[in-house]
């Protein structure tokens, strides 16, 4: 009872992240676009379950059993070459081929109900900084799947929520160090470790580097060049560059949708604004899944 990888594209296994080990240097990792990931899990009525995070190219599998799965994020989805859809729970039959090709900004997520992944330190996430995590997604890799007849009831669920952004404004709490970074920046490069920004008018980074101190995803580091780096999910647990601010949790997932050459805005906000943004996002997620009729809303 397995699925087999036919094409990989640029794909990693991720879940919500690897929590509780930061004091021994283990990055948080986890789904880069946590919003799309959570929607994808919700489509199969799960949470914090392993997902394929497909950045680019085509990810393709074959299966020797009936699968219940969900895909979220802009993507072309084909089942045995026939057009299917992202944003809903699908059933893919024994012997069929499924391919997912992201077509927009940021990764698409594929969750397969019952996918068996060897957890490393309580998480199915591949950490690109240290290499920690389950076996990598390679052509020919097989994964066991254990399905349950109950899973079928999720088929036909779909999402009623936007999964693409119109503009990229990142709200941040200023500090701990006083450095001016608000305004418009251009994206220079992006990885899961960090997003490098650039501007013709870099900021003033202040005095030399500090003794390494704890950092986290969302930190806006300012190296001596004055061109900031926003840390991503696979960032190290400590750093020595000054930190001008930390992107609020409600906007962190948008980092995954950035591409080199795009413009983004950094905007300083208060703790109360961060709280409100978080509450709005939770509300949005809670209402986003439309279940098929006959099974009630659960």
């Amino acid at each position, binding site marked *: 009872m397995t699925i087999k990888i036919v094409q990989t594209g640029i794909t990693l296994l991720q879940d919500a992240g690897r929590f509780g*080990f*930061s*004091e*021994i*240097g*283990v*990055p948080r990792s986890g789904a880069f676009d946590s919003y799309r990931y959570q929607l994808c899990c919700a489509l199969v009525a799960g949470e914090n379950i392993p997902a394929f995070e497909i950045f680019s190219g085509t990810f393709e599998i074959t299966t020797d059993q009936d699968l219940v799965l969900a895909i979220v994020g802009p993507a072309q989805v084909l089942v045995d070459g026939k057009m299917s859809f992202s944003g809903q729970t699908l059933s893919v039959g024994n012997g069929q081929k499924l391919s997912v090709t992201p077509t927009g900004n940021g990764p698409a997520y594929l969750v397969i109900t019952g996918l068996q992944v060897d957890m*490393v*330190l*309580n998480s199915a996430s591949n950490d690109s*900084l*240290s*290499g*920690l995590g389950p076996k990598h997604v390679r052509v020919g890799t097989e994964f066991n799947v254990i399905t349950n007849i109950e899973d079928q009831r999720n088929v036909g669920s779909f999402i009623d929520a936007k999964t693409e952004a119109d503009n990229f404004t990142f709200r941040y*709490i*200023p*500090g*701990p*160090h006083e450095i001016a970074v608000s305004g418009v920046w251009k994206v220079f490069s992006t990885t899961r470790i960090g997003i490098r920004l650039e501007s013709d008018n870099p900021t003033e980074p202040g005095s030399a580097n*500090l*003794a*390494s*101190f*704890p950092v*986290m995803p*969302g*930190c806006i580091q300012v190296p001596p060049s004055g061109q900031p780096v926003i840390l991503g999910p696979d960032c*190290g*647990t*400590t*750093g020595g560059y000054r*930190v001008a*601010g*930390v992107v*609020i*949790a409600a906007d962190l997932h948008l980092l995954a949708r950035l591409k080199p050459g795009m413009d983004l805005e950094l905007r300083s906000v208060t*703790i109360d604004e*961060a*709280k409100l943004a*978080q509450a709005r996002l939770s509300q949005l997620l809670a209402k986003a899944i439309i279940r098929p009729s006959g099974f009630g809303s659960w």
Partner: protein
Amino acid sequence: MAKVLRYGEQSILIEEIDPNQYLKQLIKALPEAKVRAGLESLIVTFPETGDHVAKVESALKDLQPEADEASGKLFIIPVEYNGEDLAVAAELADAGVEQLISAHTAITWKVKLIGFAPGFPYLVPTEDMEPAKLLGVIGRLAVPRRQVPAGSVGIAAGMSCIYPDVMPGGWHLIGTSSIALFDATNKDQPNLLSIGDLVRFEVAN
């Protein structure tokens, strides 16, 4: 006096503090929060978004510095001094390669912090002796390497380190060790070294 600074929506950074003198006490004083050390700082992370500055300031006010427990276990780690930056590092220290190796092996190092990457130890000299002064002038690389080989022994900013695995890094590489620093299959204690442990390097034969 320590500086208490807002650090994102859930955390507080305490700067200008000896983390080892306050870490355990602060964990006790703020049971709802998570406390983690930096080299000269502490981060306190609360489960919810909020204005936590005053809470941390008042908790800190009631605490007296605790004696820094000097020693955990002692680890003797053999090193082949064949690092790519060995000659450059010796030059920066205005010393010969042999002199640099003697200094590195003469120092008893203490694990000040595990951070950056899984099991990565920041080692500081236990005493401010001549060998420590000699190595202290060597800074970090101007441009970090994208990939440092696993087991590399590095020095920078008066500290030493061992890279547990292949990863990016900006320290001067002076040698290679075959010690296994991190075992993810051992969930209870994946890290070989812990804060407070002592390390001596010796020339591998």
